[in-house]
């Protein structure tokens, strides 16, 4: 479906940039912009909890200077991509699957075909592209809020200096984290919106199929995204262990 929708979008001579941009920007508005209040709350809570727990434990162990490394590993590499993906599945994966399902029921997809408009380039491609961009932006926003805002929340109970915290954090972030960020969040976005569009298009004629495909889209997207994240993390750490000579 990824190949077909991208191929359709690039082959479609009629579909101008204006059409694509219109639908992509609408998708970014619904998936990215409208999710910001919820992602802010989740990021503040997650960041606050992790910073509170880790600063306390690290202080007891005498490793307070390692807080930056721990947070980058936990928040940027693992929790951020997963929570953002789960939130997008819950908010937008369901919306896209049910929207496309209802379009099938209402014969909008057939109508597009009748008008010579390829649904894959007009409906699917902009949703996938907009979804991936939104997820990357939301994940970046989550990381920033979780790491800075979370510190503000934790500040109520800890006396960790902000300058020390930021310095530790900036030193811990490496180029590999940026690569992992794009890999995990980009592919999670791709998985979520391809699964949602595919399930939506599976609706044949009847409205009773819409909730069924929506549920299926959520379940499948969660399974695929979590499996993907786990696989990437496992491969990443096996690679690290090999580099350190701890695993052959």
């Amino acid at each position: 479906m990824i190949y077909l929708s991208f191929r359709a979008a690039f082959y479609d001579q009629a579909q101008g940039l204006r059409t694509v941009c219109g639908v992509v920007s609408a998708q970014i508005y619904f998936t990215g912009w409208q999710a910001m209040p919820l992602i802010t709350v989740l990021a503040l809570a997650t960041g606050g909890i992790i910073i509170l727990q880790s600063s306390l434990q690290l202080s007891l162990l005498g490793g307070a200077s390692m807080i930056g490394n721990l947070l980058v590993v936990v928040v940027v590499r693992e929790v951020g991509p997963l929570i953002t993906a789960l939130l997008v599945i819950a908010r937008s994966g369901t919306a896209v699957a049910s929207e496309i399902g209802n379009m099938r029921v209402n014969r909008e997809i057939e109508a597009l075909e009748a008008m010579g408009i390829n649904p894959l380039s007009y409906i699917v491609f902009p949703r996938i592209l907009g979804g991936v961009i939104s997820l990357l932006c939301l994940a970046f926003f989550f990381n920033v809020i979780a790491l800075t805002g979370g510190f503000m929340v934790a500040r109520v109970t800890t006396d960790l200096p902000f300058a020390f915290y930021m310095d530790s954090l900036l030193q811990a972030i490496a180029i590999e984290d940026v690569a992992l960020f794009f890999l995990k969040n980009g592919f999670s976005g791709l998985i979520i919106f391809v699964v949602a569009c595919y399930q939506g298009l599976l609706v044949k004629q009847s409205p009773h199929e819409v909730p069924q495909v929506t549920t299926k889209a959520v379940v499948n997207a969660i399974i695929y995204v979590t499996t993907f994240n786990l696989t990437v993390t496992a491969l990443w750490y096996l690679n690290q262990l090999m580099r350190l000579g701890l695993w052959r």
Partner: protein
Amino acid sequence: MKGVAFDGFKRLRFESMSFVYETGGPLVFEDFTADLPLGKNVFVTGSAGSGQSTLLKILAVLVQPQSGRYYINEFNTTEMSLEEFLPIRLKIGYSFDLGGLMVNRTLRENLMLPLLYHKICGDEEAAERARKLAEEFGFKGQLDMRPAMVSGGLRKLITVLRAFILRPEMAILDDPFTGIGIDAARKVVRLIHERRETGELKHVFLTSRDGSWIRELDCVTLAVGRHSIELQEERAAS
């Protein structure tokens, strides 16, 4: 992949075509072979469930038969990609018996969509075409409303009118008169006659539950069976 070079409908032919819906049920068409008449207003009829609407959809290449071939001129449509078929598609205006409007767009945007998407004309001309139709059919005040905000009859009428907006050579209309009101139905009949007189519209295939409009259109009748069709050359009016 580019579209085929197409210079008008010269032949419509089914060869050993079989069709069954994905959702199951009996075969709608089985080993169906027929040449369809061109250049006429054709009223497609048959017993309930005999596949009139399905035949229209296959004619418009909105669904594909499971086996057999459907030729438009020398082109086997069952083997054509969407891009290859596009030049032919733009010569076909299709209207649904139910649904088919983009629910998140206004009536104006629904009418303008194919014109703007295929860059047939600019924004202004597309808006002008939509406005003219709205004035003629008396829904100018509702042009900027979404389908959910207007009556079912008007929604149906917009679907029918959208089939004519690209000035097609062939119109395929699935039960276009039911629910749109006598006045609008009369105007649709007049629109078909006008387009025929100007030479833009050459072939019309339609189903209808209301025989009076079929008589107004001076249709020939095409009785659909499971294996073939029977063309009744005498006009439906007789």
